[in-house]
């Protein structure tokens, strides 16, 4: 009888044993695959944490004659590792005119001084998104009418409630912004919204007139670019904040950025802001280590258990081995038969395990994890006296966590599983094979 046939016949005859082995191998393979898929999912989760800690760097090109040109900005955004989230900012001053070119009135009450030439001028703040400007995020500014400025172009402005009242302006009206030094250089803009301050300005008595809250005007970047650099059709900016995916790479990214052509980087100031990440770094690494250790422990012990189990199984077949050898079947082919049996069952187990572990991973992925994209934060609801922190859901562009069995992991489990099955069977069979058939059979109980 040929050994393949023998192996098959044995497996079929001893259905119970074969099934136990199959179950065992299946459980082990599924465990390993699930562990590996969970591990790669935790890696994504950790990358998300890193990204959500919002490491960024700021380019201050205020001293450059032309700021940061538009195409340099797009080149910077192409640098590998940037998350795509960025804020461009420009600050300047402008004289305010109405649509007919008549000067508009500013507030001078509470000003430390009204600098010469700024009698009808105020501070111009341009931001990629006016809602993200520090006046709105930290300074307590709030929109009362109209909509914030979220585009780079469009010649729009936001004006203070009091400024609007004083000059009879309302949303939709047109006014002119003029260069403070060169009064002929003006640009018409539309009032897109009206804001107010919810907190008193604490620098009253110290701030010059143009810095008073009432006199500040928010505009889009291209308007500011016209006022600052006289550009038309293209937008240059003074400052850029660029967020990165992995704050660990900030240094490298900043070096890459400074190698780009077209800007005199020597005159710019680049500042890194990754304090939140630096604070969390040690704990985050600890967390990653724990995941790693968990996977390592599982893998090592799984292999150990598998080897022991196969040994246990083979030891129950000493009697059978003796009989085979006594029948004159060579040791090699007996061993091969055992190996074949295990490999046959292992192959079936591994094939099925792909299905089971995919099902389990899918279950974990769909039912347990927060789906990042549809995440809504519950606002902290604090009782009466305290203010509710209104935290609009911010889309941080985090990657969706996917718990799935990857091809590499599957191949890995196949390779290791097979090697282990063969090795442990061979090892367990070694002491039995060393003996003569007579001594094996006489040793039996």
């Amino acid at each position: 009888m040929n050994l393949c046939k023998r192996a098959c016949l044995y497996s079929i005859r001893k259905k119970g044993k074969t099934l136990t082995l199959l179950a065992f191998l299946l459980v082990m393979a599924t465990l390993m695959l699930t562990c590996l898929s969970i591990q790669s999912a935790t890696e994504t989760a950790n990358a998300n944490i890193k990204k959500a800690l919002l490491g960024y760097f700021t380019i201050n090109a205020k001293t450059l004659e032309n700021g940061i040109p538009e195409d340099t900005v797009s080149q910077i955004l192409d640098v590998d590792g940037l998350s795509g989230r960025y804020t461009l900012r420009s600050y300047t001053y402008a004289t305010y005119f109405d649509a007919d070119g008549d000067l508009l009135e500013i507030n001078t009450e509470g000003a430390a001084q009204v600098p010469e030439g700024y009698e009808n001028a105020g501070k111009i703040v341009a931001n990629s998104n006016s809602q993200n400007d520090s006046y709105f995020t930290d300074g307590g500014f709030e929109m009362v009418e109209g909509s914030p400025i979220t585009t780079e172009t469009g010649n729009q402005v936001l004006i203070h409630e009091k400024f609007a009242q004083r000059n009879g302006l309302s949303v939709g009206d047109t006014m002119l912004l003029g260069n403070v030094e060169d009064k002929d250089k003006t640009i018409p803009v539309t009032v897109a919204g009206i804001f107010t301050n919810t907190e008193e300005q604490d620098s009253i008595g110290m701030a010059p007139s143009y810095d008073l809250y009432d006199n500040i005007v928010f505009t889009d970047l291209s308007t500011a670019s016209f006022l600052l650099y006289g550009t038309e059709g293209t937008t240059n900016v003074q400052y850029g904040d660029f967020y990165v995916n992995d704050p660990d790479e900030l240094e490298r990214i900043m070096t890459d950025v400074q190698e780009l052509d077209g800007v005199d980087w020597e005159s710019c100031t680049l500042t890194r802001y990754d304090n939140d990440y630096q604070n969390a770094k040690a704990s985050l690494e600890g967390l990653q280590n724990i995941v790693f250790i968990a996977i390592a422990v599982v893998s090592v012990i799984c292999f150990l258990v598998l080897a022991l189990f196969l040994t246990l199984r083979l030891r129950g077949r000493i009697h059978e081995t003796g009989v085979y050898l006594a029948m004159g079947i060579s040791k090699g082919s007996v061993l091969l038969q055992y190996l074949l049996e295990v490999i046959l069952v292992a192959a079936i187990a591994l094939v099925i395990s792909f299905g089971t572990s995919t099902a389990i991973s899918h279950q974990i992925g769909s039912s347990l994890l927060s789906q990042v994209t549809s995440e809504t934060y519950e606002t902290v609801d604090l009782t009466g006296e305290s203010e509710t922190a209104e935290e609009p859901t911010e889309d941080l562009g985090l990657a969706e966590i996917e718990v799935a069995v990857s091809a590499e992991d599957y191949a890995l489990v196949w390779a290791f599983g097979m090697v282990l099955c063969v090795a442990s069977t061979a090892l367990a069979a070694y002491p039995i094979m060393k003996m003569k058939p007579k001594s094996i059979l006489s040793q039996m109980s």
Partner: protein
Amino acid sequence: MNLGIRAILYSARKWKKTLLVFCLLLAITTLVLSGLAIADAQEEQAEELRGTTGASFTVERDISTGGWNGNYSTQEFMSEDMIQQIAAVDGIAGYDATLITLPRIFNDKGEELAHENYSFYNYGSYNSQYHELFLSGRFELVEGTHITDDMTNSIIISRELAEWNGLKVGDTLTGVYYPQNNTPEVDMKIVGIFDVVADKNDQVNMYDDASYYAYSSYVFCSMDAAEGLIKGWGEDGEGISEAYYYVTDAAQLENVIREVQSISSINWNNYKITANDEVYQNISSALSDTGTLITTLIIVITAVSMVLIILILSMSIRSRKRETGILLAVGIAKPAVILQYVLETLLIAVVAFPLACLSSKQVAGTLGTLFGKAAENVIVTPQHFILVAIVGGILLVAAVLVSSISTLRLKPKQILAQME
């Protein structure tokens, strides 16, 4: 022969088999114990991570409920007692409050310190390490120590200021706020020097009065010194209007705030609380995902371990069919046979479980150091052990019972006849 003796004799006679089952039990128990320890460690680590997000709440006087005299609010200021009372609430890691003064500062020879524009911008502080400027990383202490609430007459200054004036830690400075209002001179010892990391030329922060001062002119002094500087300033009352409290665990922020609000000696009509946990909110979903994944991993491990134990035991019992037949044939009662098997298994378990306790710590530690990762947090607690011992014991007994049912249903003759 007594069944206890029989169990021991069997285990000793078949020592190789016993050893194998022992090793299997040991390995699986180690796996489960390490799993439980890892789950705990993950929880701890996640808590630590949440602690680093700087989640805080601000207590400030509520201008809207206070009076207004035309120029400024007459709402009551925060008292030192109140600030300390809140700081004593459980779960608060640190706190700070600021009392701003704009003093002139002189060295020990009576010369005014060289500085940039205006005067100095002085934050009276309880714990300067919790000051926003340090927390946000804009300033970094490079020498000496931070101001803490047990310090008196201390000040920390910027490196530039120290360099321009040849000052070092340990020197004494004298500050005076409004000499024309007869505020006293206050002597302060330099306890620390900080570096300015942030780019002051960036106009992003130009919305408050502090922004008109150069960073190099910022100084932080202990609260008693700041209070000393404004002593005698008069009834217009300059006081502390805001205090910041940082919590150890961002997830507990809401509970801590609730507890603070239940302090009855504070008139909460005059104060309001604002929560700030933006960083935590940003990472919370990703962080809880990591937690869920690790917990799931541990659950999978535990479930699989249970299945494995049952499989191994049933295999071992089933291979003893012949023995069972003989034992029954010689007139030993069925319960006695089962009990013998249970006893054998438990004998192994009694040795394997405590050993697993030792090995699990070893395994996590060794694997950790092997790959250069720290595993200090992975600790097997007695609770873990008791849990595993009880559940494991029950599981073993159940597994033996279930696997012997099929054999024990039959008569000895049938069993022996069935054998090959």
